[in-house]
């Protein structure tokens, strides 16, 4: 029994069948990659996991509880954090503030009307946020406007924000898309480090095979809305069906 169990999920958009009979099980503490050509349904699947979309049929269980019908913030509070393809951070806020917000969410829940206490007095939150910034190696940027940072830094910040919530499952949507090689490698190192040091499960959607094969312990290949194969990276590498569906397309 994995931490995330997807069973017989179907999703249609008008005449287009985006997901058909998707079954997926992600084991706890593993790094699980989902790959597939464009239009294979990767993003749709991800959106079904985090509450942005609701599947037509099927079930999505996280740690034994259904996530279906819950709003994204509720699913997040259950322990699933998501990193976006383009970093979604609070651009108008400082880096430190960016990091404090998930800390508040972790401590106070989805809503808290603490309108008359000063931020400065929130010692525990400040400590947590600073700690996480140190972990992310960004403490020197704490007073920067988040929007003015480089893309790589924004990505680090976003991952840090997700981690500061201590999620049990971290979903990454093409975390290295559009990154320079050096930034990509830094991100891989960061994710490796996270995997090694934290009590966490990672699911990653990725195009970049370099990233996938450096990180993943198991890989699911999605094509035309349904899983093609699921196996270890070594096996996937040589799988003829995968070559046909995936590499043929991307070539």
């Amino acid at each position, binding site marked *: 029994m994995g931490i995330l169990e997807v069973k017989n999920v179907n999703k249609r958009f008008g005449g287009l069948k985006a997901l058909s009979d998707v079954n997926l099980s992600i084991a706890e503490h593993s790094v699980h990659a989902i790959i597939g050509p464009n239009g294979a349904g990767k993003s749709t699947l991800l959106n079904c996991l985090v509450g942005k979309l609701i599947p037509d049929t099927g079930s999505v269980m996280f740690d034994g509880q259904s996530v279906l019908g819950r709003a994204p913030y509720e699913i*997040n509070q259950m322990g699933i954090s998501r990193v*976006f393809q383009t970093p979604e951070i609070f651009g108008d806020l400082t880096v430190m503030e960016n990091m404090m917000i998930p800390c508040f*969410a972790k401590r106070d829940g*989805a809503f808290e009307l603490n*309108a*008359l206490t000063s931020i*400065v*007095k929130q010692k525990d939150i400040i400590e947590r946020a600073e700690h996480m910034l140190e972990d992310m190696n960004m403490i020197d940027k704490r*007073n920067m406007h988040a929007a003015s940072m480089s893309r790589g830094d924004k990505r680090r910040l976003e991952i840090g924000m997700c981690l500061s919530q201590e999620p049990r499952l971290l979903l990454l949507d093409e975390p290295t898309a559009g990154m320079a090689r050096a930034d990509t490698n830094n991100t891989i190192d960061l994710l490796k480090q996270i995997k090694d040091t934290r009590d966490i499960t990672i699911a990653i959607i990725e195009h970049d095979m370099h990233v996938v094969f450096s990180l993943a312990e198991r890989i699911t290949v999605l094509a035309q809305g349904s899983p093609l194969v699921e196996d270890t990276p070594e096996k996937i590498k040589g799988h003829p069906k995968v070559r046909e569906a995936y590499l043929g397309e991307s070539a």
Partner: protein
Amino acid sequence: MLGLDKKDTTLMLVVAALALLAPFILNPFPEGSAMAQFNAGYPDLMQRFAIYGILAIGFNILFGLTGYLSFGHAAFLGVGSYSAVWMFKLLSYNVIPGIILSVIVAGLFSVVIGFISLRRSGIYFSILTLAFAQMSYNLAYSVLGNPSSNFNLTNGETGLQVYASDPQILASASAPEVPHLFGVAMRSSYQLEVGSWLFTFNAGYYLCAVILMLSFYVSVRIFRSPFGMMLRAVKSNQQRMNYTGLHTRPYTLAAFVISGMYAGLAGGLLSTMDPLAGAERMQWTASGEVVLMTILGGAGTLLGPVVGAGFIKYFENIFSKINEGVLHQWFGFLPDGMESAVIWVVEHFVGPGWHLTLGLLFMLVVTFLPGGLVQGGQHLWRLLAGKSRKEEHAKTETQSTPAE
């Protein structure tokens, strides 16, 4: 002090000083001088500065922090005004129940309107709030205000006022027949004459000033609170909010209701200073006015909205009163031909032309002082002071976030 850091304490002290010394600051010109026309230190206008300041501070909590542009805040102002006058009619002229009820009723109103309107964002939200306010205005002006019907809630065009036949069950014989605070009439004033200067200290104004300072203080606290940070986060990225386990709707609703209660408070105070509540207070132009005040002064800055409110009210009340006779006094020293030429030009911008001046001012400020009077002013000041851009940048970061 009071849970504020050093910079905010300074700001708070500056506001307090401005508010308490307003009778001096606003009357810089001696009586009888030609410039006395520009004096603004008389009770009615000082009260209006404070009251509309409160309204704009409240509006800024919603618009400046969350970016949700409400075009219907006048509804809460109107509801607050009506509530206060009803308290005068039913209980007594003591202002306390009126002010309290105006805040409560406006709060309830904003819960309902906010709950529905906040289901949409952006311009869709603006139009929903506008629609609610316009409905309130139209109904208050006509259907709900017909004196000959049994259900006369607003007294229509004439405006809700206290009649001798009203119950006033708590009225005591010793209290004045005008709005008062435990016997001190709101319109009673002390006057101080210094040389040819005359300063007026009005009881009503000081009540407004104290409430303004409180409102400003609460607003500073909200700006510096985790809640305030969450509101800025809503403005910055709602998607990330949702995927960080935060429910944005309660945050925006709370901001909406707080800001609606500020508007109700301002409305209640308007009635307290002058116990007649007209329906025009709820018209879209009134909603638009508070939007303009906030943007003109600087949305998202602490002081901006108050400055913007003061600016607009000053033009409305001072410039509209300058007539040809006054101009002849001013320019009487010029040779005849030149005098009439100058007067001909200036005439377009004062008296009936005060709208033109205001319109031009809007355009000039927004073009040359982006971010409003306060931020633009700071920017200009730093340019003049010749500080480097880096320093400036570092400074803005520690400040509250600019508009949008």
